[in-house]
C-alpha cells in the first residue's frame, strides 16, 4: 500500500457550480502534504469530502488500500481521519480533558466516566508530544487558542487518527505557538501519521511540508515534492495563467484623490495602510487569503472602526460608524460572500436592486414609488444584462453570475462616488465574468473611483490601473505602468517588501 489515502477523479458541484473537477489527491503515511489555493479553489470542498462533511458526486476514495465511503464526520473519525479546524470546534465551558474525550469517553465498569484513566492517557499523550499537561482540568475556554489547538490534536490521537487534516492552523497562532505546532507535526509525521496541511502562508509550507498540491478553480494545477518548486511558481499556479487580456479604457483619471487613507491600522488585521484613490481609476488590491484586504475595505465602509489612522473622503476627514453613514457619503461595498452578505434570497430582483435607495424612491407618507423603482430596476437589468424572467423573480433562483449583477445593480443605484468590489467575479462563469469586467471599466470611465479586491492575477492585471499588494496586513507593493507585472505582484504577495513607490499621491 503506497498511499494511506487516495482520492481519484473527485467531482462535486453545488447547484450548477462545479466546485471540484476530477481532482486526484494522495497521501502517504509519515508525510506532510500541503494543499494550497485561493478561496473558491476547491480545497475546502475537498477537505469536507475527506472529512465526511460532504459526499462526492463522482469519484472514489481509498483508505488504507480499501475503497471507502465516508458519509459522516463521525465515520471519518472512526476510521482514523481527524480534522483540526481553523476555528477550533471546542466546548469552552467544559474542561480540557472533556474536550479531548467527549464522544469517546473511557468508562468504568459501572458506566461512569473514568476521569482518572482519562487523565492518565491524556498525560502520556501530551508527554509523548513534548507538551505540558497541568491544565487538563481547566475549562477549555481559558486556554489560549494555540493550546486549544494542541488539545484538539490530542483529541485526534485519542481517536487513533492515521490522517490528520490541519485547516489553516496558524492563522490564529503566535510565532512561538506556530513553532510548537510544527514540532508536534514533525513528531506526528515521524510516528507515521499522514498529515494534510492547508495554508496560504507559503513560508510555512516550505518549512513543514514534504509535498504540495496547488488547486485553482476546482482543479489540481500541480503537485510537486517541496524541493522541486519555489514560491513564485506556486503563486503563479494559484493565481492563474498569465493570459494577456486587454480592456479598452477611455476615461481619464481625476486630478484630486477622492479617498486618502493614511496609516490605517486595526490590529491584528492590518497595519499602517496608506494609499490614494482617484476618480476614474481602478485600484486593484491583490494578496493571498488573510492579507487583510477585505478588512481594510470593510473598515472604509464603516463596518468597523480603525484603531488609528485617518481617512479623507472628498476632501473631508471622515470616520464612519456604520454602513449607513458610509453610504450617505457616497461609498458602496460589494461584499465577498454575495449570498450571505449581499442578497436577500427570498426577495425579488426589484427589491434587491432598490433596497439601498428606498429613501429616495419615497413619495408622500413613506410610500415607495413603485413605478420609479421599476424603471430603475429595468434600467439596471438592461445595462448589466441581467437575465431574469421578470422583476418579481426571487433572486435565489438566478444563476451566480446574474445574482452578482443584481448586487452590483443594487450598489450602482446609490450612484456612489467610490465603489469597493470584493472578489466581484468569484464563482462566476467566464462569459459573465467578461461582461462584468466591461461594466466595471465603463463605470470607471464615467468617473467612479473603484477599489477592486481580487485574488485572480489575470483579472487584476487586466483591470487595474494600479495594483496594491498586501501581505499579512501590510502593503508590500504598489505597481503601475511598466512595473505592473505578474512577477512583481507575485513576489510582493508572498511577502517580499517592494519599494512602495506609487502608493501615495503620485
Amino acid at each position: 500500500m503506497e498511499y494511506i489515502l487516495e482520492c481519484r477523479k473527485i467531482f462535486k458541484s453545488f447547484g450548477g457550480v462545479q466546485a471540484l473537477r476530477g481532482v486526484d489527491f494522495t497521501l502517504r503515511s509519515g508525510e506532510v502534504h500541503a494543499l494550497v489555493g485561493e478561496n473558491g479553489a476547491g480545497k475546502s470542498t475537498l477537505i469536507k469530502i475527506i472529512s465526511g462533511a460532504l459526499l462526492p458526486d463522482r469519484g472514489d476514495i481509498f483508505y488504507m488500500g480499501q475503497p471507502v465511503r465516508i458519509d459522516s464526520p463521525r465515520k471519518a473519525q472512526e476510521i482514523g481521519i481527524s480534522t483540526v479546524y481553523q476555528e477550533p470546534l471546542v466546548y469552552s465551558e467544559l474542561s480540557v480533558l472533556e474536550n479531548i474525550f467527549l464522544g469517546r469517553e473511557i468508562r468504568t465498569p459501572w458506566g461512569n466516566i473514568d476521569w482518572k484513566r482519562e487523565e492518565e492517557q491524556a498525560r502520556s499523550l501530551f508527554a509523548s508530544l513534548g507538551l505540558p499537561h497541568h491544565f487538563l482540568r481547566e475549562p477549555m475556554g481559558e486556554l489560549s487558542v494555540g493550546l486549544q489547538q494542541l488539545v484538539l490534536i490530542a483529541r485526534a490521537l485519542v481517536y487513533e487518527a492515521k490522517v490528520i487534516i490541519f485547516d489553516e492552523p496558524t492563522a490564529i497562532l503566535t510565532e512561538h505557538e506556530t513553532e510548537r505546532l510544527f514540532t508536534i507535526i514533525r513528531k506526528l509525521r515521524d510516528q507515521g501519521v499522514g498529515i494534510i496541511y492547508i495554508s496560504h502562508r507559503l513560508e510555512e509550507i516550505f518549512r513543514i511540508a514534504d509535498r504540495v498540491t496547488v488547486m485553482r478553480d476546482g482543479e489540481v494545477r500541480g503537485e510537486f515534492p517541496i524541493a522541486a518548486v519555489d514560491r513564485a511558481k506556486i503563486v503563479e499556479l494559484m493565481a492563474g495563467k498569465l493570459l494577456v487580456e486587454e480592456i479598452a479604457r477611455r476615461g481619464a483619471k481625476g486630478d484630486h484623490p477622492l479617498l486618502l487613507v493614511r496609516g490605517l491600522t486595526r490590529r491584528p488585521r492590518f497595519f499602517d495602510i496608506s494609499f490614494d484613490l482617484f476618480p476614474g481609476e481602478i485600484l486593484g488590491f491583490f494578496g493571498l487569503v488573510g492579507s487583510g484586504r477585505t478588512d481594510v475595505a470593510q473598515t472604509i465602509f464603516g463596518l468597523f472602526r480603525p484603531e488609528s489612522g485617518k481617512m479623507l473622503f472628498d476632501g473631508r476627514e471622515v470616520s464612519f460608524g456604520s454602513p449607513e453613514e458610509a453610504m450617505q457619503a457616497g461609498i458602496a461595498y460589494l461584499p465577498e460572500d454575495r449570498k450571505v452578505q449581499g442578497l436577500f434570497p427570498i426577495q425579488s430582483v426589484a427589491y434587491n436592486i432598490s433596497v439601498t435607495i428606498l429613501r429616495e424612491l419615497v413619495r408622500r407618507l413613506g410610500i415607495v414609488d413603485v413605478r420609479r423603482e421599476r424603471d430603475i430596476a429595468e434600467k439596471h437589468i438592461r445595462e448589466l444584462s441581467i437575465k431574469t424572467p421578470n422583476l418579481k423573480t426571487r433572486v435565489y433562483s438566478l444563476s451566480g453570475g446574474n445574482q452578482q449583477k443584481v448586487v452590483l445593480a443594487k450598489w450602482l443605484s446609490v450612484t456612489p462616488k467610490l465603489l469597493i468590489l470584493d472578489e466581484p467575479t468569484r464563482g462566476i462563469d467566464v462569459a459573465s465574468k467578461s461582461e462584468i469586467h466591461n461594466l466595471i471599466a465603463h463605470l470607471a470611465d464615467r468617473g467612479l473611483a473603484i477599489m477592486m479586491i481580487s485574488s485572480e492575477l489575470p483579472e487584476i492585471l487586466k483591470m487595474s490601473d494600479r495594483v496594491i499588494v498586501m501581505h499579512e496586513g501590510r502593503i508590500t507593493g504598489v505597481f503601475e505602468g511598466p512595473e505592473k507585472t505578474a512577477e512583481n505582484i507575485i513576489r510582493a504577495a508572498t511577502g517580499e517588501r517592494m519599494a512602495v513607490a506609487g502608493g501615495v499621491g503620485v
Partner: protein
Amino acid sequence: MTNTGFRKMLRRREFTVLGLIVVLVVLFSLTTERFMSVSNLSNLLLQLAGTAISAIGMTMVIITGGIDVSVGSTLGMASVVAGKLLVGGYSPFFVLLCALGTGLAIGLFNGTLIAFGNVPPIIVTLGMMSILRSLMYQLLGGRWISGIPPAIRVIGLGKWLGVPISMWITVVLIAFFTYFLSSRPLGRAIYAMGNNPEAARVSGIDLRRTTLFVYAVLGALAGFAGLVYVARTGIVQTNTGSGFELEVIAAVVLGGTSILGGRGTVIGSLLGAFLVGIIKNGMVLLNVPALSEGLVVGVLIILSVMIDVIRARGERS
C-alpha cells in the same frame, strides 16, 4: 467533583446566590419575627420542594438551549390524574407511577416535536400549555378534587428529622442528577450540546436523543411535583400549576444557568429555588401584596439574564 471547570463555576455564581440567600434571611428575620419561626420555615421548605424538583429538569432543558413553559400545565395535569386516582381508591404506588407516566408522556411529546419536527421549543411548549389546560378542565368537569386520602398526604406534609419528606426527596434527586450530569456521558453530552451543537454533532452525539431525554425527564419530574402538590394541599383545581413555570424558570436562571445554554448546575437551581421561595415568603410576611410577585420575579429574571449576557460578551472579547 471530578472537574475543575465545575469547581471554578461553583466559586462564582452559586456562592453569589448563597450569599444573597443569607442576606435575605438576615433581612427578613430582622424585619419580621415570624420569618424565623419553625412553622414558617418548614412551610417554606414544603412549598419550594415542587419548584426545586421541577427546576432540576428545567436546568437540563435550558442547558441544551431550550425552554419549557408547559411545565406548570404538566404539573396541573399530573395533579388531576393523581387526584382522581387517589380519590378513586387506587394504591399510592400505582398513583405515583401514573403521575410520573403522565408527565413523562407530555415531556416525550414535547421533545419529539422539538427534536424531530424542528418546531422551536417556545412554540411547542406554549401550545402544549394551553392544550393541557383544556384537557385538565375536561377531566375535572369544571369541579375541584378534594377528599384526598390521608395515606398519601405524608409525601407532601410529612417530616423526617424535622425536614419535610419532600425536601429529602429533592435532596436525593439533586444528588443523583449532580452525579449524572458530571459523571455520565449522556450528562456531559447535555453540556456539550448546549455549548457547541455543531461540535457535538460532529463528535457523534445524537442531538435528537439528548433533546428528547431532557424534555422527557422534565416532564416526569413535573409529574412527580404534581403528586407532591396534591399530597401537600389536598385539592386540585382547574388552575393548579398556573404560573408555576415562571417560578421554575426563575429558579433556574437565578441559580446560574445561562439562558444561552451550555452552563448551569442543578445545585445552583436548588439555590435559585430557595431564593425565589424566600423572596415570596418574605413578601407575604411583610404584607407586600402577592400581586407584586410577578413584578419582582420578572425583574430578577431580566437582571440575571443581563448579567449572563454581559459576562458572555466579556468572555468573547
